[in-house]
């Protein structure tokens, strides 16, 4: 079997050799040719999380976003519709928008002044007689648009492929987790209004995706902060925990901590915030949903879900993963804000700022592991990364999903299984699909 690919494009057969049910090959994290293939077959084809509608609340608002290395402008048209444009002038390819965000219904390229609407149409070019007058402009193009835009619960996804599964098909069971997140707002809506920290790591993007629902690492990587802050998060990821790791299909996975949160049985216990600190929020939740349902929502808490390939919701914070090179990735992080919950939101911002970002008391240590891991897998031997943890004790839950214990690598195995279906759409051997990934939604 071929275990090294050199610099040539990975063939489907080569990839199948590299992604096995219980191990993956180190070159998947280090080979630029594989990274190039991933951009094409994953980042530029499947649904990728881009932004949230609350970032462009008014018509003519726009914000710069990304799909991997691609620069995207997310805009709101006069009728309220959301558009994703490629930030590349139709004339000579200049970046059209420079500001991170702004309010403008049209964009004028700074190079030669071509002007586009916020839906991408060319409105005009200076001195248009050079193009045969206004009529001639019809021959010229506008800004390229991301062919498919899908919105679920305000979360905007884009697909650079014109065809493919619908967003609903892509999200599958993940959609219900976004519902659960939104229900934590008394108005049923999430808002991303706190701005983003951009935390860069010198590591392959899959290191991050795999880590997000890896329940095996917190006790080690975060023990410094758990031990001094008296946090009980560490206990959620132990052999005694009743939490489970669940493969949701489509490469998505979650650490379902709700069983532990229910054991706590305290509204907002999952957020470490006593009711007395956020009386307005708790009262409003009970008022809107009724005491029983309101308490249930507040006890069950927020999801901890990795939506493949780049949206990670970790209870109170949201990460968007952006690969830039085979060993370079940026995480864009913000505190989740719940519409109609100002007292809770302030706490979430300060809590989140302490944990995430370049100086975060949690995330700087995760980042250190990504980078060490990247340097490690660049070493020649033993070539493989092990994925066996919990393989022998997986079960199927009532909904047909494969689950492992809180510290099992169930999520990684399902991610890789899905990865293979995207990278190699016609697998020669199908069996590992069903055993690893479990049921689809």
């Amino acid at each position, binding site marked *: 079997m071929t275990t090294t690919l050199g610099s040539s494009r990975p063939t489907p057969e080569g990839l199948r050799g590299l992604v096995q049910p219980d191990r993956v090959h180190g070159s998947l994290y280090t080979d630029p040719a594989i990274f190039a293939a991933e951009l094409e077959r994953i980042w530029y084809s499947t649904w990728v999380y881009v932004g949230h509608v609350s970032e462009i609340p008014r018509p003519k608002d726009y914000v710069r976003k990304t799909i991997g290395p691609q620069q995207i402008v997310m805009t709101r048209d006069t009728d309220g519709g959301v558009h994703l444009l490629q930030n590349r002038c139709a004339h000579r390819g200049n970046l059209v*928008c420079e500001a991170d965000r702004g309010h*403008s219904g049209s964009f*004028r390229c700074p190079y030669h002044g071509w*002007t586009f609407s916020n839906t991408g149409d060319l409105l*005009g070019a*200076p*001195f*248009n007689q050079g193009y045969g007058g*206004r009529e001639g402009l019809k021959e010229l193009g506008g800004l390229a648009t991301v062919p498919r835009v899908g919105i679920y619960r305000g979360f905007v996804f884009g697909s650079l492929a014109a065809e493919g599964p619908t967003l609903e098909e892509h999200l599958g069971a993940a959609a219900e987790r976004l519902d659960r997140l939104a229900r934590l707002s008394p108005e049923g809506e999430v808002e991303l209004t706190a701005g983003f920290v951009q935390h860069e790591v010198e590591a392959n993007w899959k290191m991050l995706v795999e880590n997000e629902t890896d329940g095996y690492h917190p006790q080690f990587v975060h023990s410094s902060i758990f031990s001094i802050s008296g946090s009980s998060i560490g206990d959620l990821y132990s052999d005694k925990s009743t939490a489970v790791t669940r493969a949701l299909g489509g490469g998505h996975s979650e650490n379902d901590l709700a069983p532990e949160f229910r054991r706590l049985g305290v509204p907002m216990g999952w957020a470490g915030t006593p009711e007395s600190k956020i009386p307005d929020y708790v009262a409003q939740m009970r008022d809107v949903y009724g005491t029983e349902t309101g308490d249930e929502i507040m006890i069950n808490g927020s999801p901890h879900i990795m939506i493949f390939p780049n949206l990670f919701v970790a209870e109170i914070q949201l990460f968007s993963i952006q690969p830039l090179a085979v060993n370079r990735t940026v995480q864009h992080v913000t505190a989740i804000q719940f519409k109609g919950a100002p007292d809770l939101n302030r706490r979430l911002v300060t809590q989140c700022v302490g944990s995430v970002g370049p100086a975060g008391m949690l995330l700087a240590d995760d980042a250190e592991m990504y980078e060490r891991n990247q340097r490690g897998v660049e070493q020649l031997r033993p070539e493989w990364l092990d994925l066996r943890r919990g393989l022998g004790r997986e079960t199927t839950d009532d909904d047909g999903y494969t689950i492992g214990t809180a510290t099992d690598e169930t999520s990684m195995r399902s991610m890789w299984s899905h990865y293979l279906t995207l990278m190699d759409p016609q697998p020669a051997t199908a069996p590992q699909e069903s055993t690893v990934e479990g049921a689809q939604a």
Partner: protein
Amino acid sequence: MTVAKGDDEATPGIELGVVASEFATVKVTLEQGGSGARLRVEDLRADAVRYLDALELESLVWAPEDWWRRLLDPSLHRWRDAGRGPEIESLPPG
């Protein structure tokens, strides 16, 4: 083409603020004087001023979307090939 300057620079007004984006920077002042009110709109990047009266402003409110799109065409007035095209390109009816 030149943009009409104001006749009366000294009229006192309430500076409403600067409306700016990465594409334009414009100062807006509400002026009360003479025999009525007007809006003073100044392009701070190019030192040009336009005064707008109530009826002109009302017309802007009612101008159809297509008209606004045409207005944003750089060739329409500010950056046109002098003498190489029609003096004023005809606007579509609506």
